[in-house]
């Protein structure tokens, strides 16, 4: 791990966790900076929830060290609730309770003053879109509404750090959009957000940094663009010809070109050999196209999608 730990809001140092004979986390180290939206992605059972439970203090018997604002999480467990809001993946509510009743209890347990609590609950319910069901019992809420209530209780005491475990699961497309918007707005206010998901699309548009976890190991941490760039530097070249341009031949004979994939009459992709000199190869291809008097509309070095990066790391190909 080459990251500089200065300014880290959360820092994991060689953390491991076993459940009896199962190794849930293996020597993981990473950091989350203040103001980050840190997307923590990995398949089901990869150790995301275990990581999160360590941060929020629900798991205390682990190896290694976890620091929040440079303080050991084990030492500040009693005070951590003041700065931390937690949306658990599974946590339920007592079914006989009403939405506002639950928020009232959690608000008081979090130490919010009674005189401001009612107004705060009203604001939060409006923010997450639950104001119409505030007097309904949990047993009458849909799964999506319960998920929004989990988010509401996490935001209630205006924490600096939000730990969201699969916050978009169970939400319909409109609610997913709303929750993503709320997360972005909270980050704009300077809050640090740690967001886990097993679905890449949940995090790729909003995360400023991403950590990929598989089988309890951190496979990669970085900004989305850096992950894409580091993964594979433009080994595919997309060439789009002008309408009516004649076919260009013999591009597969250019040194460094592995194969040519014809997408349609105007578009092809040249797959370059990983060991080739990319600049030299591109120049040769270009020269070949001009030599045959073919007209180019677009010429583009393709970057891998984040999905490709993710699949590569969790798909079992990385050793």
């Amino acid at each position: 791990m080459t990251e500089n730990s200065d300014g880290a809001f959360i820092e994991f140092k060689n953390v491991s966790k076993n459940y009896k004979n199962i190794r849930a986390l293996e020597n993981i180290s990473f950091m989350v900076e203040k103001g980050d939206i840190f997307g923590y992605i990995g398949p089901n059972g990869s150790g995301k929830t275990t990581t999160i439970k360590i941060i929020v203090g629900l798991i205390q018997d682990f190896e290694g060290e976890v620091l929040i604002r440079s303080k050991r999480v084990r030492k500040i467990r009693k005070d951590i609730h003041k700065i931390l809001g937690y949306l658990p993946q599974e946590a339920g509510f007592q079914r006989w309770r009403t939405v506002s009743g639950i928020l009232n209890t959690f608000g008081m347990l979090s130490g919010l003053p009674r005189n401001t609590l009612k107004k705060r609950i009203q604001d939060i319910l409006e923010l997450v879109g639950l104001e119409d069901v505030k007097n309904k019992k949990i047993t009458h809420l849909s799964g999506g509404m319960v998920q929004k209530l989990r988010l509401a209780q996490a935001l209630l005491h205006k924490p600096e750090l939000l730990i969201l475990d699969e916050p978009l699961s169970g939400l319909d497309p409109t609610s997913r959009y709303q929750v993503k918007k709320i997360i972005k707005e909270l980050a704009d206010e300077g809050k640090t957000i740690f967001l886990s998901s097993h679905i890449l699309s949940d995090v790729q548009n909003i995360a400023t940094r991403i950590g990929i976890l598989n089988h309890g190991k951190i496979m990669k941490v970085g900004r989305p663009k850096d992950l894409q760039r580091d993964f594979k530097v433009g080994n595919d070249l997309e060439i789009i010809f002008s309408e009516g341009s004649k076919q260009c031949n013999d591009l597969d004979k250019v040194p460094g070109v592995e194969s040519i994939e014809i997408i349609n009459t105007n578009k092809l992709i040249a797959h370059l050999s990983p060991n080739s000199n990319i600049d030299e190869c591109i120049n040769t291809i270009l020269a070949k196209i001009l030599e045959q008097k073919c007209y180019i509309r677009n010429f583009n070095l393709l970057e891998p999608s984040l999905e490709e990066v993710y699949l590569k790391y969790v798909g079992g190909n990385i050793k």
Partner: protein
Amino acid sequence: MSLWLLFINEMKSFYKSKVMIVLWIGFPVISILLHYFQVGSEEMPVFALVGLIIASLGGTLATVILSTSIVGEKKEHVYELFLIRPVKRRNILLSKFFAVYSCLIVATVVALIFGFVIDVITSNIALSVMIKDTLKSVAISIAAMSISCSIGILIGTLSSSIALAAILSIYIGNQLSLISIMPSIFFPELDPLVFSIIVGVVATCLIWTLIILIFRRKQF
């Protein structure tokens, strides 16, 4: 602070639950019926019988309610959101105990007062004797229900299946709660009041020590 908040939280649900409504009505009805039919004998006075039946019925219900609700809440991960806040683990369970226990005490006292009033109107027994016997019955019932409620919490803490918790509560919880009553029934020389209170307090404390030790180690 957290214990009081959690207690109020639990109370709001329990006092108006269907089970409690049955007890609010059922206990006084049992008391009236026993007094009306005068089922007591010299070996077992009516007041002792009222205490025994109410403690047994109420205790069984309390054990089942507490154990199954704790297992259900554990399964639904309800406690996670409490535990990330400044809430002591034991207070989550203590609040349940006090809520159910205090509702049962009120229901028992109401039932015995009901019976007492009927006795005052209908019987020739001296008032001082009746007051003494009523208080005895109240104390015996309260001691037995304290054990029942504690056993309900213990079973809920240990069990991971609602069905198992219910079965254990019915077959074990109720029988154990009667340890505070049985000896004074079969050995009349023992003072039932003193014996029930001592056994109730000691057994409750022992069970709670076990509960706190187990619940502290639970992983959520």
